[in-house]
């Protein structure tokens, strides 16, 4: 069974704080992704990674950075949290193949509130 875990289910931070969201997958997937989910906007891709130490910007990377030092772990960093980063953050992973037809498996999400 594929498992994607996220370090926290709920998180409350103050404006200006540095925030780390951690994601770990146990299926040796090459690809890992960070999304945020907001009402009326669906899921939007923040960053993704094809391999260790590799990262690519998604559709809304501003205000975020990522780190992938180990294959199983992908971290999302909010350098200076702002109230408009209050959201549900979802991590996902998948195998990489030539056609990228592999299903993405999602973690349970972290509900982040920035006060």
């Amino acid at each position, binding site marked *: 069974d594929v498992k*994607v875990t996220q370090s926290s289910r709920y998180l409350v931070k103050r404006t200006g704080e540095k925030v780390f969201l951690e994601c770990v997958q146990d299926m040796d997937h090459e690809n890992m992704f960070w999304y945020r989910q907001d009402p*009326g906007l*669906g899921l939007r891709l923040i960053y*993704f990674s094809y391999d260790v130490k590799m990262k690519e910007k998604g559709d809304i990377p501003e205000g975020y950075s990522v780190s992938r030092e180990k294959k199983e772990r992908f971290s999302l960093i909010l350098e200076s949290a702002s109230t408009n980063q209050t959201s549900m953050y979802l991590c996902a992973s998948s195998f990489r193949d030539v056609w*990228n037809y592999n299903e993405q498996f*999602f*973690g349970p999400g972290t509900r982040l509130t920035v006060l």
Partner: protein
Amino acid sequence: DQQVKQNSPSLSVQEGRISILNCDYTNSMFDYFLWYKKYPAEGPTFLISISSIKDKNEDGRFTVFLNKSAKHLSLHIVPSQPGDSAVYFCATRSSNTGKLIFGQGTTLQVKP
């Protein structure tokens, strides 16, 4: 600019009836489409997919239809069950990057 649109934020149907969830997309180059289902407090889970070389794909109670000329896909659930109550996201995937592009989601409520 929303490349994948689900224009109905919510849908309510009676148990046993058909649920039809709709999705429109803008780019005719999209060639693979997926539906994900999300329960509260859980991550989305893959439900069913369809390649652009097909116009229909069926899996049990779930069928996805693709109309390429209209750039429209739909998910049919027959018969609907209360356990199907969830948020449904349609998505398409960029074939060269593997990135998924999601719609806004439709909340389905199936009433007993």
